[in-house]
């Protein structure tokens, strides 16, 4: 048994287990911290795929950014410590059907996918430089489009927060 295998399985169990916690937790803060472990474990999985840049970006964007914003939202609104998420939906039939349909879809995609197309050796100089070249050469339009979209969202949010009256 390899040490990497042991660590991989620890990470995998952590990812799935905390994802279950994030899904089924009654307390929304518990769910948020379940998500925290899931995101960190996914970053670990990226490390095992030799996607070093992607792994750290996962930590920066999801753990350091999005999850912190999520926590801000929860902590600012949720005053009671025994706050329990209220499940408003009661349409179990529709839910079950939709879930089954999704499951069939995912399973069929899993069947169709060609696995083992991950290169066995990590790229020699790391993945950062190739990603940078691709983003700014081959996929420049998509990159700029998404950044302009984000900028528009940012300006919109700032406008909404600012209020109507000028002072």
């Amino acid at each position, binding site marked *: 048994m390899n040490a990497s295998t042991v660590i991989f399985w620890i990470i995998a169990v952590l990812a799935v287990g905390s994802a279950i916690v994030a899904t089924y937790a009654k307390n929304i803060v518990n769910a948020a911290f379940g998500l925290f472990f899931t995101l960190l474990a996914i970053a670990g999985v990226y490390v095992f795929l030799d996607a070093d840049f992607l792994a750290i970006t996962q930590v920066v964007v999801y753990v*350091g950014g999005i999850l912190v914003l999520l926590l*801000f939202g929860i902590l600012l609104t949720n005053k009671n410590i025994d706050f329990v998420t209220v499940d408003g939906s009661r349409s179990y039939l529709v839910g079950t059907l939709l879930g089954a349909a999704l499951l069939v879809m995912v399973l069929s995609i899993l069947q169709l996918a060609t696995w083992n197309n991950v290169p066995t050796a990590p790229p020699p100089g790391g993945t950062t430089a190739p990603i940078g070249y691709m983003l700014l050469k081959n996929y420049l339009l998509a990159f700029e489009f998404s950044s302009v979209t984000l900028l528009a969202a940012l300006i919109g949010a700032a406008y909404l927060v600012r209020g109507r009256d000028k002072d």
Partner: protein
Amino acid sequence: MPEMTTATAAFAAPPNPFGDLIATTQQALTQPMGPWPGAHLPDWVIFPLAMLAACAAVLGFIAVSAMVLIYLERKISGHIQSRLGPMRTGWHGILQSIADAIKLLFKEDLVPDASHRFLYSFAPVLVFVGALTPFAAIPFAPNVVVANMSLGLFYILAFASLEVIGVLAAGWATSSKWSLYGGMRVGAQMMSYEIPLSLSVLVVVALAGSLNMSEIANQQLYIPFVIQSPWALVAFFLFYISALASAKRAPFDLPEAESELVSGFHTEYSGMRFAYFFLAEYTSMVVLSAIGAIVFLGGWNFPFRADTSPWLGAGQLFVKVAALLFVMIWVRWTIPRVRIDQVMYICLKVLLPMALVCLIGATLQVVGVPAWIMWIVFAAIVTGITITGRRIEKVRATQPAGQTA
């Protein structure tokens, strides 16, 4: 020191991506090195042992440096305020930190009744992990680094941001309003200052063309980046101010403002859990000073001369880090605390635009504009700001400072 040299030899690898961290550590441990019978042990025993050994070394370093820093902070603050500081424990109070540590170890571990049990006990760990993990990528000397990753600097900044989540969790789990406000302030402040911090570091990353800490240090063999480029010089000061804020140091220590928030998010913590927060604060000071020393000030390279002696290099890296730490302590007892709106103003309207200008300048220099032209442009900008400064001051004086829309 046989371990030191073997580890140095084993880690003298070219910049690796992550995958090779495991291989390198295993290689280091399976080599027959003196009394260590590493070659005969199975892999899954060796690897955790290697990790534990690295962790123990880093933890020892952190504990000792934090204790020394706490002692120095007390002595320096005392002398700045014309006091003596601790004098009773040992010669000039030199054992004060050990006494503090013993007191914290034996203190009762109080848990508020209304707190969230798991998060309350987990938050200090998370904060401490955020302070501890960056050490994996910080080189202490040429080739003396736990993991020589190609993305070292990015890794350090990423995992330092775990601290924010721990602080938020601590503030909320205590279920006290003061702690929640303190946690919110820290969260907002650290999140905001991550932007100028990362951007100012990015200036040097653009100049060096690498994210590997050792590579960045080696690019400053004769001339540190603060002299290679005026933009790196400005970025260094931006970095240092942002570092003060993200380490929750004065003048940005609002989260722990004793007079307003009763020491913020760790009000209810006692004993070792409080000690974790305390250790984490001093550890992140060390981490940020080390980044400043390695990335901006040349690391283990002497300015204007190529000295390859590793011990001298490590020694002067230590001196650079110590100098940056001393200025942090000095600033704390010299500059009064800023208001929370001023904190945000400084971050978003002063540091951020300046960092962006520096980034553009550094990119131009990378593209091919020579450094001397950059210095002339820089001098012209500084002169222009100085001349128009009086006018700007006059306009500012007509409206109250720090007014938010």
